[in-house]
């Protein structure tokens, strides 16, 4: 390498050194200014404030016990749990609704296809924040008070204080039913692998569906019957000015989750539609020519190819839903951002608060993309 500007390698080194130098200078400039400003305003930097007493109540503490006397750290943990609650329920529901609408758009029925198209076009072209405000005022201003609650289905109440659903009353048998159900799924998967090996060796295929269904359904059913078939249902009941019992969704939770699901489903619908349209007719015909049954055609030919198109954009929709759940702060649902915001206003620790928010979302984003990259590599075309 010559030390002259005419040598491309030398030039590249100079450019890169300049870029890194500029980035370092900007970083140093910002950090030193910040430190000087913090000192001038007598704000102690650092995360020691997390151990102090938070002193504010949180409206929804579903999974972590919390009171105003607890620390900021615990308050943030409650916020994170609330974010996860919205994101998990939202992702599952949006996937189901989005898939249904995406398939509906491909229906041969003109009315159905056009309705689905209208849904997608309208929902996609209005900002999520407007929709969240809309659902929120619809619930809090336009639904009746608990005394005059709407009852669309028996036991389901819609009021301006929230949505109330009946749930099966707690019983120890339910936990064991869940355990046997999971065990059933695992054993069915093991059985499927054994069956595939056996088919490869002998050409005979054991009755898959019947045995798998039996493995998954029979043990929980036996537990249910052994426990005396507990069917008690915890129905919400009006007592005084509000409902007690059953499952409660606050207006904030209902508006946020409902709004996120409706919004994201429109995008997922388009992804599902595109994924199915991407499969060549010839693929169906070839599968038929090979004599594959319709269910096997779907499972072995169509879905693996459609998923390859669907999975990457679907990942980014899941990420978007999780990031969009931070709009909770606008309608007062106590998610991570909203609680960090309260903590920032109370303590003045703005820098630390924003670092916490960004670090949490970055780790969620990076871990979801890492998982999806792994999954993508697994289903990618083997050449």
């Amino acid at each position, binding site marked *: 390498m010559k030390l002259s500007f005419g040598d491309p390698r030398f030039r590249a080194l100079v450019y890169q050194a300049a870029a890194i130098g500029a980035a370092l200078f900007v970083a140093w400039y910002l950090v030193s200014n910040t430190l000087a400003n913090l000192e*001038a305003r007598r704000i102690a930097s650092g995360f020691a404030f997390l151990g102090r007493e938070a002193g504010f109540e949180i409206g929804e503490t579903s999974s972590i016990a919390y009171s105003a006397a607890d620390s900021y750290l615990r308050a943030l943990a409650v916020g994170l749990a609330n974010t996860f609650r919205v994101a998990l329920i939202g992702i599952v529901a949006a996937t189901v609704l989005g898939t249904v609408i995406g398939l509906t758009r491909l229906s041969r029925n003109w009315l*159905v296809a056009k309705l689905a198209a209208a849904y997608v076009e309208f929902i996609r072209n209005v900002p999520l924040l407007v929709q969240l405000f809309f659902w929120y005022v619809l619930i809090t201003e336009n639904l009746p008070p608990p005394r005059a609650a709407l009852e669309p289905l028996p036991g389901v109440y819609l009021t301006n204080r929230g949505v109330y659903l009946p749930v099966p009353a707690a019983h120890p048998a339910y936990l064991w039913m869940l355990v046997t159900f999971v065990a059933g799924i695992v054993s069915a998967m093991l059985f499927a692998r054994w069956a595939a090996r056996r088919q490869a060796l002998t050409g005979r295929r054991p009755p898959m569906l019947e045995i798998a269904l039996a493995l998954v359904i029979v043990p929980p059913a036996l537990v249910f019957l052994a426990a005396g078939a507990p069917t008690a249902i915890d129905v919400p009941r009006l007592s005084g000015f509000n409902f007690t019992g059953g499952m409660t969704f606050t207006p904030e939770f209902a508006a946020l989750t409902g709004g996120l699901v409706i919004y994201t489903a429109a995008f997922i619908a388009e992804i599902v539609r595109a994924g*199915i349209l991407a499969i060549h007719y010839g693929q169906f015909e070839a599968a038929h020519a090979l004599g594959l049954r319709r269910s096997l055609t779907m499972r072995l030919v169509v879905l693996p190819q459609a998923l390859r198109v669907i999975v990457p954009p679907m990942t980014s929709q899941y990420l978007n839903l999780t990031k969009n759940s931070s*709009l909770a702060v606008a309608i007062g649902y106590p998610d991570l951002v909203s609680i960090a915001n309260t903590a920032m206003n109370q303590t003045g620790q703005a820098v630390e608060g924003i670092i916490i928010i960004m670090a949490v979302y970055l780790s969620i*984003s990076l871990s979801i993309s890492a998982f999806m990259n792994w999954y993508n590599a697994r289903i990618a075309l083997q050449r």
Partner: protein
Amino acid sequence: MGTDPIFRTAGSIPDWARANLFSSWPNALLTIGIVYVLWQALPSLVNWAFIEAVWHAPDSKACRAASGGGACWAFVAEKHRFILFGTYPFDQHWRPALACIVLVALWSVSALRAFWKWWLALVWTGGLAVIALLMWGGAFGLPYVENERWGGLILTLLLTSFGLAFAFPLAILLALARRSTMPALQGLAVGFIELVRGVPLISLLFMASVMLPLFLPAGVTIDKLLRAQIALILFAAAYLAEVVRGGLQAIPAGQYEAADALGFSYWRKTLLVVLPQALRVSIPPLVNSFIAFFKDTSLVLIIGLFDLLSTIKVSLTEPAWTGFGVEAYLFASLIYFAFCYSMSRYSQNLERGLAKAEEGRRR
């Protein structure tokens, strides 16, 4: 490739219905079920929105009294000046109105393919300068209006337009850096893009509103609007950069090799061969990103700027007009929908047009 279902359009109405609505028993049942639900829901909706709605009323009480359970559009009629122009001085409202028209004209001109020339950048510079003059004033006999008083629809359009105008060149540089062979440049670009895309926009806006003042040396301050605008520019740049990168990746390697064979320098190759093709390919997805960005500007409400959504929300807090949230947010949806839907139709048409042009060139 598969296609969307193609519906029969020819033939008489009964033929059409038989083919598209009643082709099989399940389809017929589905059609009847949906028609029944619409029959139940639509009349009361039309009743609420139009027939029993109140269009003019002196105040909210009159509106509530006059409507027999219909919508109160009088809220929108009463508040439209505030919703469109915020707290801009009332007698000067023609200025933001004219600025809105200039902005929409700029966007419309940029949408025409005949104007996709290098001098479009000059048109934009001139247009944005005229808008800045109109909004700020302080010259040609226009009284000065500080930007704390800007608000409403014009603020939403300004945040979007200035945001995209500054983010776009930045995005091209970021995309080129990410595709570059120099590891340091690539690392910086990847770090910036992934950082911005990995966090919610709200956290960037919070950062702009509370952390940016700490970043600057003592005595230097930037106002809230500019701070939010900077955050929006950085946010848009990261997303647009990924779209431009997609366009860059779509250029066949032969184009790069041909430019190298001609002895072009990096910048000549990039400006004359690569970018013109890459940008052409990425225009439809770019328009989709523009739509997303236009919708995302509504988040500035959370840090206390008076954009379109924010002026609507503030109008609702006035005690006389509380309780009309559904009407207010439906109105907001309609405005946003009008802008976004026209952009999205444009993008679809453009995609088809470009695909056809591409096919023609191949032949």
